[in-house]
């Protein structure tokens, strides 16, 4: 017999909250989970009434719970937001086509308009075709660059003011550690911001309502709410981002659950010497007018390579270029170190 | 053949506080074999604090006659008679 009772209501406890270790019943778990996200949204002033907000929806657990909770909170607390689902179809047979089906079901269930932007319509290439040409080596680099731009294009289509993503506390903590390990100060500063935006309005602000939400709790919430999500990993990159740092986060969580938020807290209190952060000069890509720090944006460079069949080279060149522009600012010695650090990058 | 082995930096605690041993091993024994031999015959507790896979745990320095083993084929180095193999933990608290 389980005689443990919920710390909030005294009824029979059904789970132990991963974040706090509290014994709690299912109903109270829903309440605290939703309340915490609501508090994050209000205390950070994430939205203003009347805004159009795109929910980046992949069909996976984080974005499915995000779509659900955005809908619930918008109705319950009358945020006055107009919500949209935005999905990217990378063109990966056996993975994205299936996960998009679950996004489509979410669209029906939550009655939210859905926009699907595909790599094929945007770039003329599916990931299947890209992998067929370049193999499995740099495919994630391509995909990342393309997705980032595709999401922005989708936001433009939907004319939204903001986009929310399902990045959770574990993701943020992991990114903090990785940026400390790589010495990437600019990213370190950016990665804990709950809203990232470009001052010149180059892209639509992105917000992370799950910044303080534990991955385990998202999974539990989805499970107990019986939410419909797709849990297969990408076939081209199983275990993507489950590198060293992720493993450490999971181990740390086991010995001390509070570590995850404490890592985030640490990064929030870092003070940055502005001298050390290179200011990105943002201009527009000459080919596609997307924001870029170079004349031609990375996506266009990749595309050019793909179209002329020299894709492998273009990944290399593009990385070489950023390396060079950085190198101009630093001393010779640091350049060497940087190239060493990029080995770390490459592996993660 | 006889080979001398030393432990320090807290590793001695795993070997019944022995700071030095003389072991008798076959010809063509590599450091990797020696590590396995030590585990088999002398390690008293917590092998995970000494070994990782079939080598030593990262953070343990191995010197052969005062030379870093990384300059000597690492775990594949074949020990020679009267070699002095030192295992030093650089890890906190051993």
């Amino acid at each position: 017999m389980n005689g443990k009772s919920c710390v909030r209501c005294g009824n029979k406890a059904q789970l132990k909250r991963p974040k706090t270790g509290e014994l709690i019943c299912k109903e109270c778990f829903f309440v605290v989970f939703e309340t915490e996200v609501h508090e994050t949204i209000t205390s950070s002033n994430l939205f203003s009434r009347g805004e159009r907000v795109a929910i980046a929806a992949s069909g996976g657990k984080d974005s499915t719970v995000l779509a659900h909770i955005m809908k619930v909170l918008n109705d319950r607390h009358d945020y006055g937001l107009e919500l949209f689902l935005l999905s990217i179809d990378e063109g990966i047979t056996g993975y994205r086509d299936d996960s998009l089906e679950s996004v489509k079901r979410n669209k029906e269930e939550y009655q939210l308009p859905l926009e699907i932007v595909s790599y094929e319509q945007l770039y003329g290439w599916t990931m299947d075709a890209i992998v067929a040409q370049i193999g499995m080596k740099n495919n994630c680099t391509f995909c990342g660059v393309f997705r980032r731009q595709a999401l922005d294009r989708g936001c433009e289509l939907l004319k939204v003011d903001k986009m929310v993503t399902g990045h959770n506390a574990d993701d943020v903590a992991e990114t903090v550690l990785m940026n400390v390990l790589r010495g990437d100060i600019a990213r370190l500063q950016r990665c804990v911001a709950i809203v990232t935006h470009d001052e010149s309005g180059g892209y639509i602000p992105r917000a992370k309502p799950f910044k303080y939400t534990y991955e385990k709790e998202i999974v539990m919430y989805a499970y107990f709410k019986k939410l419909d999500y797709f849990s297969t990993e990408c076939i081209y990159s199983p275990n993507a981002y489950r590198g060293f740092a992720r493993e450490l986060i999971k181990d740390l969580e086991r010995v001390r659950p509070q570590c995850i938020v404490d890592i985030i807290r640490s990064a929030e209190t870092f003070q940055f010497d502005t001298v050390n952060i290179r200011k990105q000069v943002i201009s527009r890509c000459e080919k596609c007018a997307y924001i870029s720090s170079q004349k031609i944006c990375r996506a266009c460079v990749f595309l050019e390579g793909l179209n002329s069949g020299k894709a492998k080279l273009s990944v290399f060149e593009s990385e070489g270029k950023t390396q060079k522009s950085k190198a101009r600012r630093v001393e010779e010695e640091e350049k060497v170190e940087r190239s060493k650090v990029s080995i770390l990058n490459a592996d993660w | 053949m006889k080979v001398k082995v030393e432990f320090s930096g807290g590793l001695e605690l795993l070997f019944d506080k022995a700071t030095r041993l003389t072991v008798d091993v076959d010809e063509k024994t590599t450091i990797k074999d020696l590590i396995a031999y030590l585990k088999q015959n002398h390690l008293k507790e917590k092998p995970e604090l000494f070994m990782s896979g079939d080598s030593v745990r990262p953070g343990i320095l191995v010197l052969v006659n005062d030379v870093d083993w990384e300059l000597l084929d690492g775990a594949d180095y074949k020990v020679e008679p009267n070699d002095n193999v030192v295992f030093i933990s650089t890890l906190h608290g051993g």
Partner: protein
Amino acid sequence: MLNHLMQEIVSPHSYRTISFFWSVLYIDIGAAVGLSEEERLERAGQVRDQFASREHGSQKEFYIMPLEYAFRNDGENCVEKMQDYLNSFKQLSAREDALRQLVQTAILNFAQENNFSNVITAESASNLSIRVITEICKGRGFNIPLITSYDDSSTHEGVRILRPLKDKLAKEIAFYNAVEKLKPVFIPDITTGTPLKSSVDRLVEEFISSLQANFPSTVHAILRTTEKLKVPNMQTVFNCVVCNSVLTRDERRSQEEAVNGLHTGDDLTNLQRLGKMSCYGCCRELDFFKSSENCSNLLSSKDDAPQQNKFVSERIAEGKTILEDFPIYVNDNIHKLIRMSREQVKESISEYLIEDQ
């Protein structure tokens, strides 16, 4: 920390060519890690011999500071008191943190009381990079630049900490010691012999060591990151009352509130108030003080307001002054803080009065 500190400080020859007066301080943590009286004496002797055996050794003074000194009090057994204190932290990671703070404070307090202007530590690049990550994991990111600087010239009330070995890898130091036939004295820690994944410090150490084995620039990359962070301004007496770290603006505000909210005759010392006077990291550690392992008392999602810890106070037995369990310096810090705050208030009033006349 301590063993690294002591065992490796012998190595840098260069120091002997510079002429200044220096002494050796050995913090004896033996009672905290369960060594017997004999073992403690034996180790202290070994450490002393280690230093005395160097050429100029005879000129140096050798001090032994038992860690339990921070708990001295008339008629009480300070060894037991310290052990009770450490054991009150119901999690290995928290206990480890408490021990580290005791050692650090012991060093600084010794230096202050005996008019030493500098403390030289043997912290290596490897130790420091591990320390950086553990402090990040414990929510003390704000103070990290102070941990890793060569010379934290922002003073701890007149004492500067110098870290001449901060560029050297633990491996290089161990190699140096081996080649120079130096025999470092091994001093166990509370995690000695515990499983690999038993505490935050152990996990991080294992993580960094494996990473370093695969990517030899790891340790230095971490330290370079910290060098790009702004060093917090230390020109304040209003530090964390437990670990003495510099407070962020939020933390300082909460400390101020806690002090200003005190009335004559108040119990200075419930755990909640202590938490409010501490940094975020220490406040989190206090969650494990005399609580059960299941950390049921953690903060809710409002982590940007760590001091609003409503759970902590409920755990305090009524009428029991929690501060009695803490090292004496925590008590001193609180009293100093209160005095300074009152003086500050008085000063601001008197200024106002003068202007008014």
